[in-house]
């Protein structure tokens, strides 16, 4: 498998470490509920199909990436810097 790191190009998946589903957002702050945290830490959709997931290019540029990959075929549709995706996520959250 190869992942097209936005700054390093196509690299073997051996250069990366995997974290998992990028969909859950951390219930941040002192008012987060244990139930929401439980959901965030443990429960997953685990889809057979497109999956947004976090990978870390540890043997390369040390960027965290959000990779959209089909779990049935391993086909990768998109790779983005996690930081950019996170900023977009937070911007969306900020909208009332």
């Amino acid at each position, binding site marked *: 498998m190869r992942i097209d790191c936005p700054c*390093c190009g196509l690299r073997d998946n051996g250069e990366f470490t995997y974290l998992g589903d990028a969909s859950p957002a951390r219930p941040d702050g002192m008012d987060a509920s244990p139930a929401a945290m439980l959901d965030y830490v443990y429960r997953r959709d685990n889809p057979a199909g497109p999956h947004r997931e976090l990978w870390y290019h*540890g043997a*390369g*540029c*040390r*960027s965290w990436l959000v990779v959209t990959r089909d779990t049935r075929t391993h086909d990768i549709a998109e790779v983005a810097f996690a930081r950019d995706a996170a900023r977009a996520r937070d911007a969306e959250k900020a909208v009332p």
Partner: protein
Amino acid sequence: MSDSAPTTWQQRSGWAGVTQTGRFGRAGGDPGVRLDLLGRQALATIIVRPGEEAALDRLMQERLGVALPATGRAAFASAGSLVWSAPGQWLVMGPAASALADLPQRLAGVAAVTDQSDGRALVRVGGADARALLAKGVSIDLHPSVFAAGATAVTSVAHINIQLWQVDDAPTYVLAVPRGFAGSFWSWLTAAAAEYGYDVQQVPA
């Protein structure tokens, strides 16, 4: 305990105790690979602060006469070289040990500067078989149409994270290896180079 003296504060290269100079590997013909062990030079990581990339670029042009290289690129100049190393990060190299001492001050508020001069062991790899040799360990495409002089990559070789950059189209490469891994890296490099024959020399800073 023997051998504790002297207390002269002598620097040791990361290659010390690991490498031997001379001709090795395949005996006949010219060695296909030349390995130059580079002495210590000033090396630092520069990480730009949010929104300060233009300012950093300007400051580096003033200081070294080279612009911040783009992703995957390196720029070499006599005052110092800049090698991209991660988003918003560059390695800066100066010829002498103290060449970069002014940088933290100069870049204050624009970028974080962290000395790495002792953290890497550097080797220059040249010779007719240099590209083939590296292809044994590096999974990136080193074809001249893809990776040529001025290109750099952060990747891994033999389970060791390294950075390499190509300095000319001979081709010649420089590899920066984390200091503590120098022994294992050398073991791989020499095993891979043996079939071409290789020549090792020390190159003073």
